[in-house]
């Protein structure tokens, strides 16, 4: 790759001293290498740094809107407690015993899939409704994890709702508050 200096070096005829002609070519290999390295870096850093996000739609809190009554047996409530634990139950709080679970694949996801199938079977194909109620002891990560599981299990009807004192007691009973 390197250029050989082919000029000069030979015997001069006539004894005339000629100044050696040096090549005007500059070896640009290293420069090009460096330039492309930097280009690669900038291309990667600009496209990879774009912030990614998930969209979240909250139910309208307008008091004037009439809400459609939904059978309690169709709703599954997920209470987010402390220590990365959650509790879920189908139906109304206090009446149906809750199950303490984790956010993993065998925890919430399994429960969501099973309950979804049960509700679909007992309500003539109607989808299940999931209410997420984060308690004051849960973290932001828990909320995102719960939403993520809903996304994975493709349960479209869900809402983030404020927790009620009854449900806080429920969490306290299960020692995850």
């Amino acid at each position, binding site marked *: *790759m390197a*250029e050989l200096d082919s000029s000069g070096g030979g015997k001069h005829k006539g004894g005339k001293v000629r100044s050696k002609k040096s090549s005007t*070519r500059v070896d*640009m*290999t290293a*420069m*090009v290498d460096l*330039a*492309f390295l*930097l*280009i690669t870096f*900038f*291309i990667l*850093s*600009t496209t990879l*740094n*774009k*912030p*990614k*996000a*998930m*969209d*979240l*739609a*909250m*139910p*309208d*809190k*307008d008091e004037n809107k009439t809400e459609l009554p939904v059978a309690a047996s169709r709703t599954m409530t997920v209470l*987010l407690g402390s220590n990365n634990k959650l509790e879920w139950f189908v139906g109304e709080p206090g009446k149906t015993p809750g199950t303490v679970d984790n956010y993993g*694949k065998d925890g919430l996801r399994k429960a969501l899939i099973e309950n979804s199938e049960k509700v679909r079977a007992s309500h003539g194909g109607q989808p299940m409704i999931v209410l997420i109620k*984060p*308690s*004051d*002891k*849960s*973290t*932001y*990560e*828990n*909320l*995102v*994890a719960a*939403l*993520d599981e809903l*996304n*994975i299990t493709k349960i479209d009807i869900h809402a*983030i709702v*404020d927790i009620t004192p009854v449900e806080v007691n429920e969490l306290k009973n299960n020692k995850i508050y």
Partner: protein
Amino acid sequence: MPRVKIARKSTVTDMTAMCDVAFLLLTFFIMTAKFKQEDPVPVAIPAYTKTVVLPEDNIGTLTIGGSKVFFGVEGVKIRETMLEEMGRLYNTTFTPQEKATFITLPTFGVPMSQLKAYLNTEPSKMKAFPQPGIPTDSVSNELFNWIRQARLADRALFSKDLRLTIKGDSKQEYPTIGRVIQILQKQKVNKFSLITAQKGAAQ
């Protein structure tokens, strides 16, 4: 038989054109690159399986970490209008110098009472300035007004709806997040985005 001589060709290629193109591209990427802004509080964003790429402009970000809330809006013009309107609401007038400092801030988290002091801090010392976060209580309603003014400014200047995003720390306890969501819902922002990292492909 004479040997067939293969003409020796020079291995040197003229790289001038390649070099030109390379540097042209390099200049372009350096000019357009936007460096990652540092968060005022350490924020570890949670992961989510299905994410969308956020647009670069017309966006407002609420950074939440350590129970503090910071707010930032993209766009110099929106920031300027927002500050003027906020000054009017809270009876504070800002000097051109303070305005010029404010529009360079990507995000901030000081209550109105400390904003002037914060803006008059030397740029090198700004990082050390203790930012307590924007008050989220309903008495002073500061965060509510900041968001509202930012949205109004965006509507007035570009007739677009400001897209609001929440960038929360994973370990942040829910009450602060819940309060911010409540503030957003109070002004009928029912759809917003949560900044999340891309989780590995879902099973």
